[in-house]
């Protein structure tokens, strides 16, 4: 039983990191549906670098950089070219997942040496778990208690107003989108390098999509994302554990997605969106007249 909670907490880490990043991107008005793609690419980058150098920290760092680089492509399309953010995000998923499948073919089935996966741990959870939870606290403070947070939110709520007071709307959107990519890449790296330790095709297994649902579930609030990530993580790990009790594996595997769909359906109505505080200009490119 304890193991199933512990696994759930571990699964919560990549979900939390990815959704924290997406919260920042969406708070600035940029919807990046490419989380799954950025995680995939990050997962491969981290795995390859760790395998080569034996240094998981270096692997995670590379993953973050790869994620950020991919997200900049999305930022370029949606902020500078004012393209459709949904289309661009979906394209990013295909690029990220496709590239990691292609390049990762040679790694399939290769395990990482045990030694290179070891990172400091406390009470059964590794360092990164604590870092992520602390990070969400910091991100909450920045978003709701600092001027920087007000600037970010204003860009997502009403970019024309932000522009009128001298905020560089495009720069803020680029920054927040890149930050989202950074965390998504790192989240992918965590899955391949720390959690799995072995490369398999499709390693992120839809976690990027769950992270996007988590953003809504958490009402764009980094603090609430912690609870959401833990809940989703435990639901996911329940999928593994309950198999022993004769419940269909397929049914259990579908649970996180079912939960995702429920969250998305409930949150998609306009009135609910307003009540739960969706950024008013989410997904809308900004033109200055």
């Amino acid at each position: 039983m304890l193991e199933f909670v512990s696994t759930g907490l571990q699964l919560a880490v990549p979900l939390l990191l990815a959704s924290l990043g997406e919260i920042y991107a969406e708070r600035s008005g940029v919807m990046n549906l490419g989380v799954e793609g950025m995680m995939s690419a990050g997962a491969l980058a981290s795995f390859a670098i760790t395998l080569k150098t034996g240094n998981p920290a270096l692997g995670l760092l590379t993953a973050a950089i790869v994620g950020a680089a991919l997200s900049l492509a999305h930022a370029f399309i949606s902020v500078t070219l004012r393209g459709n953010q949904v289309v661009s995000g979906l394209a990013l998923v295909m690029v990220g997942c496709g590239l990691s499948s292609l390049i990762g073919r040679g790694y399939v089935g290769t395990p990482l040496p045990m030694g290179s996966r070891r990172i400091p741990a406390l009470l059964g959870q590794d360092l990164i778990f604590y870092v992520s939870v602390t990070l969400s606290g910091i991100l909450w403070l920045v978003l709701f208690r600092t001027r920087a947070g007000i600037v970010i939110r204003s860009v997502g709520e009403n970019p024309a107003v932000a522009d009128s007071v001298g905020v560089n709307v495009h720069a803020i959107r680029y920054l927040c989108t890149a930050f989202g990519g950074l965390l998504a890449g790192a989240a992918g790296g965590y899955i391949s390098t720390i959690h799995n330790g072995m490369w398999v095709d499709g390693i992120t297994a839809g976690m990027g999509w769950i992270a996007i649902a988590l953003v809504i579930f958490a009402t764009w609030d980094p603090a609430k994302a912690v609870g959401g990530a833990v809940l989703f993580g435990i639901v996911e790990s329940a999928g593994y554990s309950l198999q022993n009790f004769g419940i269909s594996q397929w049914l259990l595997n579908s649970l996180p997605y079912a939960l995702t769909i429920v969250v998305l359906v409930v949150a998609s109505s306009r009135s609910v969106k307003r009540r739960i505080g969706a950024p008013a200009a989410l997904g809308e490119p900004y033109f200055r007249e």
Partner: protein
Amino acid sequence: MELVRMEGIVKRFGSITADDHVDFDLMSGEIHALLGENGAGKTTLMRILAGEISPDEGKILIRGREVGMLNPKKAMDLGVGIVHQHFMLVEGFTVAENLILALEESLVGSLREVSSRIVEVSRAYGMNLNPNAVVADLSMGERQKVELLKVLCRDSEILILDEPTTVLTPDERRNLFSTLLRMKERGKGVVLITHRLEEIFQVADRVTVLRRGRVVDTRFVDEVSPSELAVMMIGRDLPRVVRPDPPSSNGVVLKVENLSSGRLRNVSLEVRRGEILGLAGISGNGQKELVESIVGLRKVSKGKIYLEGVDVTNMTPRRLYDMGVAYIPEDRVGEGIVPDMSIAENLALKFYRRMGSLLLDRRGIVEMASRLMESFDIKPKSPLLPAGNLSGGNVQRMVCARELSTEPKLLIAHNPTRGLDIAATSQVREMIVEQSKKGTAIFFVSEDLDELMNLSHRLAVMSSGEIVGVLNPREYDPERIGKMMAS
């Protein structure tokens, strides 16, 4: 001291020249009014000064120094503060958060500082704002106070107010003007954009009149008369609208019988052929519900509506349109037009179904649009321009063109002249009177009592969802009507 000098400013939007070699200057310690009709280029000029629009030609000097390319931040740093007609506030934020965004404050702890400063400054100007109120919950008057607070807290020396009084009650307007005078005493320069003559004589020192993007003249207010200004502004004397004699034939076109629905309580009325029936009342007393029930936008639960004797209660707007009902809605941009579609397409929104063919006859639509634009004086004469680019008066002329070109039996007009400049107002009134001469029954809802008394053959008065009386011209007396509206 000269705060601002703008020389030879030119700004073009596509084929329209919004500002055509405009010169403007502002001294410290003066209120300089910028007067002109809708679309004369006032707002564009000031947005250029605030760095929100870059001019195509011309130069700007602030405190005697040429400033080159401006952007909003740079303009702000140079002391330019603008209060837009459409408020630049983040609705989901509190007053304090909006101020933090606008001001150069930093960091966590200062939220409390900002709050106390809001209370302090707003009290000093008699505004009384709660820093923790969410802007979405505030009235228009209160939102303007937040806007003013933004510039006041920033210590801007050059203040631009774009049509600030449109949303204010008379009391609030007096308060605003005394605030402006206090700013002036402290050596600030204030630009007051307006199209209301009386405001200029109440507060301004100088006035610059713009017409069609050009400066007509800049004058000291005490050396100019209101009628001179009016002529400068519109360039011709206004024809008076004369209410035609009531029609001789008495056929009833619209009949509303015991309508009760939502706020409406037992409303009955009749409009005859060629008659203008006015509806007076304080906004929010059921006028909107009544109008929307008649045009089919709102379900009626009790009562009947007849059009030439046929029961049309709860019919769809399209069937009502087919039966000859035309509608000029109150919210002309929100309900009257599709801003992203071209002028021609907007004009075709109703008649396209009568053109008969499966595919749209694009050339026919554009030709029809050009004809309507000519006869209804819609400017600029480019039928393919998005309708959202038109100024308020032109939008309303376009709505009138679309609605009246179908030769309706019944026209419902809801506040058709609100917010329009003098020339557009009188044009719209003329169109309505002309239409009644052609035999159309007109139900004319307005909040402008002079206008109602001037145009209506009979005048119904509404209060709390009830028709409290229907008056004949002999009985038109503002005081009496005022009492009825408040009953």
